[in-house]
């Protein structure tokens, strides 16, 4: 983890309200594993006051990509950054997805902006020579981001592209009609979708790792502000910023 001032090299709206921001950082480009995030100070006045966490979406040479939705004040300011502007950030932070364990087929399941961490994961999985199937869900066709993903299948709430339904329906239909060898699910998206996904994975006995997005104050384990309930023995809560943001879905209770 390092604290750096980096330079924005590009920042474009790639889908409805969805921005792709690239910045230069050798260190972060080299050190980041899929599922990790950077914590960005979007302004040096105190509004918004806290840093804003964003998954590293992809790395290309010394360029690092983040993908973000404009949902409030912080992302608004971030969307106004121009090439040459600087960003004050801490990263890479958090525990990455595990890509080394005993699986052969990665089932990547993303809801909306949950797609953010998966381009980088895809690159790593390819290096590990894993099979990859990607299931992407969004409200409508305009909000889809499909770059740098493999074997893509799409579901939209309004049916404007792909299956009309949830990304879980999409996954389920596929698995009913195909057999996949040694599957493992990688999921990211809204909490409701993650709840459904982890139930599904549990029922189907498919190993499943999820990336969570909870409110954070520090992002580095200082404040104890980001608990998620543990399912099993031991401490009652885990810290999303340190012990996560990726968790095996059997470990945690999503609420």
């Amino acid at each position: 983890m390092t604290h750096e001032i980096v330079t924005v090299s590009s920042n474009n709206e790639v889908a409805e309200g969805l921005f792709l921001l690239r910045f230069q950082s050798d260190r972060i480009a080299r050190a980041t594993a899929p599922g990790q995030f950077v914590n960005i100070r979007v302004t040096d006045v105190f509004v918004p006051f806290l840093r804003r966490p964003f998954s590293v979406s992809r790395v290309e040479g010394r360029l690092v990509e983040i993908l973000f939705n404009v949902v409030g004040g912080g992302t608004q300011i971030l969307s106004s950054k121009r090439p040459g502007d600087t960003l004050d950030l801490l990263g890479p932070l958090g525990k990455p997805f595990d890509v080394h364990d005993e699986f052969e087929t990665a089932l990547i399941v993303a809801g909306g902006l949950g797609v953010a961490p998966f381009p980088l994961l895809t690159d790593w999985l390819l290096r590990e020579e894993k099979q990859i199937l990607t299931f992407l869900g969004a409200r409508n066709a305009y909000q889809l981001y499909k770059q740098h993903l493999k074997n893509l299948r799409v579901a939209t709430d309004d049916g404007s592209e792909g299956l009309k339904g949830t990304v879980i329906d999409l996954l389920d239909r596929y698995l009913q009609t195909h057999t996949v060898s040694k599957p493992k699910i990688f999921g990211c998206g809204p909490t409701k979708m993650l709840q459904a996904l982890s139930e599904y994975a549990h029922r189907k006995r498919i190993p499943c790792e999820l990336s969570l997005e909870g409110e954070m104050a520090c992002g580095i384990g200082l404040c104890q502000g980001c608990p998620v309930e543990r399912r099993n023995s031991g401490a009652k809560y885990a810290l999303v910023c340190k012990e996560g943001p990726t968790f095996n879905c059997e470990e945690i209770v999503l609420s």
Partner: protein
Amino acid sequence: MVKQSFTLRDVEFTNRVLVASGTFGYGDEVKGLVDVNRLGGIVTKSLSWKPREGNPPRRVAETPCGMLNSIGLANIGVQKFIDEKLPYLRTLETALVVNIAASSVQEYCDVLSLLDKQEGVDAFEINVSCPNVKEGGLSFGTDCTMVKEITTRLRALTEKPLIIKLTPNVAHISEFARACKEAGADAVSVINTVVGMAVDIKTKKPKLSTVTGGLSGPAIKPIALAKVYEVAQAVDIPILGIGGIMTVEDAIEFLLVGATAVQVGTANFIDPNTGVTIAEGLARYAEQQHLTDVGQLVGAMDSNVEFSVLQSWL
């Protein structure tokens, strides 16, 4: 070279900037990111006798120029601290202040006694902003006789510097400071967080699981300065000034109104190096002002108005 250090009892703090309890973990989270030896001291997260899980989510919420927290004193417990954290902390040169939380006077005593024996523990800071189970959960910190009793009991148990951390959520904080002094405290820390809350109008639910929480950050700096000033007018024991300190200028304000040293809290969440930056900034500022000792700033505010509750300001 400007003198930066100060002492409480026989303990020397290499400079006047510490990091505040609950905002720097146990000092081991930021290895590689912060050179903690350049801090005047580290105050640990509050430790209780048994480990505490803390409050359910959501525990933090952003507010204008600040934040609310409702951590619930989540901590690993004093024994685990001694076994797992202290060995590393002992290797540091910076002073170690262990902060103690409890739900009974006896628990305060037990935790302090156990720690008092440990090598590497330099001083104690007592967090009295804790619910007193005996009194149905009323905070010790808002009851002056309670604060005095805790101080008296703990004073009897240790020769190390004893610092009582006061809550701002009272009418006259100076009464509490006086009680602490009379009971033998070596210093007081001013202030802990201010009671606050926020509501998510989308869900119509309070943002924090506990409804109310503790407000911190620049928003409370003017409140903290007024409390430190009030205490400085009332007692002559050292004050550790806390509340919304983000920059060296903020720290200077606290010293000028009477703080002997400062603690940096929430700022660590935005930049864990803030404490070090401020410590070095203070030394540089003192040089520019041709001071020989940063301590010359303490209480140096130039005010003809003697403190008076007579003022009505609206």
